[in-house]
């Protein structure tokens, strides 16, 4: 396939992204909900951890100081917004309603259309909800100022994190082929993934075995990796490259896994006519 046909092929997916963006901007109350949820979560985390690091002038547990831990928990929630792409909800919904049949007869790849529809949701959430929350806290509390290199590494790492989050959510959505009560599974996913990603407690503060397990799993790539790169919690350029490589490897492995799961799911799909 030449570059030109490749581009033309990709252009077929733009309507999905545009459509999802339009839906998102039409239902503006979602932003209010997301803003309150994010602000609540951030405040809880910030107050809780600042009480832990109370009076620590130098670096405390896990190598964080007060400004460092505040920056960590604040940005962890913003990354959480980046991962809230609603793919699990929408895929399982389509399966339950049987709408998936229509999606199957379109001459495009279903996982790719879902990805293209999920990206605007993530980015708009980060821009319209995450941005104000960060500004609010930057005005209220001292934060750690990252370097230019940290920001660049963080951006690259966050993009990989976005892909991993999409794949996790797609897999959860596909569980809709196996069970109709996807709601309970999503709740379990939400809290277990947030925990193992280091979104509620930094992995470096977890007890040894749990931290070891969390670092091995793909979820660490969602929050822990980007924030370690941003805050400079690594030794030397090699270690930074190692973090990115680990994330990239998991992105590749998860892509294969979702492709496989999708093929198996399609084979067992059954839609009642009507």
């Amino acid at each position: 396939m030449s570059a030109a046909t490749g581009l033309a092929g990709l252009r077929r997916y733009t309507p999905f992204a545009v459509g999802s963006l339009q839906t998102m901007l039409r239902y503006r109350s979602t932003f209010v909900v997301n803003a309150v949820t994010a602000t609540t979560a951030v405040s809880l985390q910030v107050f809780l951890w600042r009480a832990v690091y109370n009076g620590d002038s130098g670096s405390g547990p896990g190598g964080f100081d007060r400004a460092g831990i505040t920056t960590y928990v604040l940005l962890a929630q913003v990354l959480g917004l980046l991962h809230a792409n609603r793919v699990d909800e929408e895929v399982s919904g389509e399966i339950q309603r049987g709408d998936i049949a229509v999606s199957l007869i379109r001459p495009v790849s279903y996982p790719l259309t879902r990805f293209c529809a999920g990206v605007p949701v993530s980015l708009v959430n980060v821009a319209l909800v995450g941005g104000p929350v960060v500004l609010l806290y930057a005005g209220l509390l001292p934060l750690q100022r990252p370097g230019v290199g940290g920001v660049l590494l963080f951006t690259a790492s966050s993009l990989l994190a976005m892909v991993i989050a999409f794949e996790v959510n797609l897999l959860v959505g596909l569980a809709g082929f196996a069970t109709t009560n996807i709601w309970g599974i999503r709740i379990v996913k939400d809290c277990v993934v947030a925990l193992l990603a280091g979104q509620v407690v930094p992995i470096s503060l977890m007890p040894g075995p749990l931290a070891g397990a969390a670092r091995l799993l793909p979820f660490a790539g969602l929050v822990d990796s980007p924030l370690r790169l941003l805050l400079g919690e690594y030794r030397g350029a090699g270690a930074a490259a190692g973090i990115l490589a680990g994330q990239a490897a998991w992105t590749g492995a998860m892509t294969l896994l979702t492709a496989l799961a999708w093929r198996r799911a399609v084979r067992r799909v059954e839609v009642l006519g009507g």
Partner: protein
Amino acid sequence: MSARGAAATAARYTRLTWYLSGVSLHRLTEYRMDFLIGAGGFLARVGCQLLVVAMVFQQVSVIGGWDYRQVLFLLGFSLLPRGLDRLFTDQMWILARRLVQSGDFYRYLIRPVNPLFTLLSERFLYPDAFGELATGIGITWYAADAMRLRLTPLQLVLAPLLVLCGAVILASIKTLFASLSFWTTNSFPALYAAGQLGDFAGYPLDLYQPSLRWLLTWVLPYAFTAYVPASYLVFGRTGLLPWLPVVTAALAALALTAWHRGVDRYEMTGS
């Protein structure tokens, strides 16, 4: 209404609640998998919350004047009013999200029972609530045992009432925000956002900024559902306790007013 009439009405609604709860339990046994996934999801959520608290207390021994067991007690206690409230008022979510918008709300107005009761009875004994209550009791019990909590007779008598008041407060907040849908057709985002703020209730209020503490005490009084009762039971603090019945009654009155005004305003779609 005479005293006898009131007693008869109360007896009738008690009987109806009993009967309709039985109907709900039948539904539970019918959809066992849903129940298990719902309860399991809830357990996982509380489990994660407990892990977070445990990890926080690995770093320090006291936060905001509360130690590990006391925070566990508070967390467990906060689940009790929430579970009790969820047992009976889960249908409010459906009202906020759908019933006014779809026009289906009229169904509750044409039955010979109080519309609020009819509405709520549709989801009595919601399964997730059992998980919440059971975990809440388990955690509270464990924490009380671990810190060798000895309650005075007065505290023992008041404890169930404190849970009940907490449940009334939560139910009133839910009713208030769900009733907004009579004006806005869909008040789900508002209800959800108000519910999210309830997450603050599971931790000591001493951690928070004074303005946030004030908000959680006097505007959306989640403080009275867990923090105030737990500080009374654990530390014997009674500073805010006298306000508890006042806040409960005022909030319930406000919620019922909003509900009645909303129902009066409601117009059928005519289709």
